[in-house]
């Protein structure tokens, strides 16, 4: 999951993050970033998420669990 953390730092444009952080709390969180997460999950983990599912995951931890549940 190191790749997950590093990619999230890149997409959310921050140097550090906590898994309990809410996605919507980041300044860079917008529809394009959501789609970037969706594209990353598709290419890296081969799973299909919807933009709504990603929003509903709320936190970075929730998103991580969502990815793991689909693998």
């Amino acid at each position: 999951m190191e790749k997950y953390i590093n990619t999230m730092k890149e997409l959310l444009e921050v140097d550090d993050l906590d898994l309990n952080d809410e996605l919507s709390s980041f300044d860079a969180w917008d529809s394009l970033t959501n789609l970037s997460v969706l594209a990353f999950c598709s290419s890296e983990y081969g799973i299909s998420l919807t933009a709504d599912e990603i929003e509903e995951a709320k936190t970075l931890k929730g998103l991580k669990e969502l990815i793991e549940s689909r693998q």
Partner: protein
Amino acid sequence: MNLKFRNKKITGILSVMPENEIQFDDEIENYNFSRQQSMKLKLVMGFDKRRVVSKGTGISDLCVFGLNYLIDHGLLKKEEIDALVLVTQSPDYFMPATSHIIHGKLGLKHDVYCTDISQGCAGYSFGLNKAFMLLEQEEINKVVVLNADILSTKVSHKDRSSAPLTGDAAAITIVENDPEGEVIYGSVKADGSGSDALIIPAGAFKMPSSEETGVLEVDKSGNEKSMDHFNMKGDEVFNFVQREVPPMIENLLAKAGVSKDDVDFFMFHQPNKFMVQQLSRMMEIPESKMPNNLVENFGNANSVTIPNLIAHNLSDRIKEESFRICVAGFGNGLSWSSLLISMGQLDFCEIIDYK
């Protein structure tokens, strides 16, 4: 509208790519967007490399180069060509038709049915449909369908919604009669009320280019373009595709009496990687059966994407094997179309570079 054709087959596909390759990373500075945002766009949309023509190269040059390649390699004989069907929205001239320019450059016989069709991203089916109809004529045995566009010349380089995905290309598809051929199912749909969703407003007869039409204006997303440029209402197009394409395919497969599992490949138009992935998610078709790797390698070249996609993904296999392929295009008009056709044992299927 549902269509049905009998006893026809595709016998070869050749794609011609212009020689200039542009990298998205080199153009990021043109856009009114942060580097991080542009890198996200790259990831989502599949922006990477695209091919564009040099100034002065027209679609007739790409088409003639490809046809001469086939003739020189013994894959096509000039005297066998009974019809040239050209699908394009970037003709060499307003008049005459570019199919006649190509006819003249090749020195073909006078008994040739030449015609240009103005269709965009839905155009691959339109050219094939025309070929199937022409082949009903006793004196027509071989139709050359040409798809060619060089719309990179009409996009604003400061418009990140169009420029990074627009590529130029031409493709040649040979269509012939086949007494053993399976039934080909098709459909075409039109909605002219959405004609302004994808449009080049100025430069033709109704609004000729002028100083005024060349003025760059900034839209609400920060993209700069003029009336002479390709203009797209991205959100309307995205909604149109999601709303209309899945039911069109459901209907096509129902008419043919086959299920999604019976189809080997879904070769869909490639507007960008995300939209193709979105369709495969909505229709629950695995990405392995619905390739989305064209825009990142060559760009979106209007009606040329589908033959390019087939040549890029199946070139060697489709010369040996046979596949049931579902083709779907969707774009300006608004226009959307599909075909369910078996393709295999092609005489040729490859991509060459224009020189």
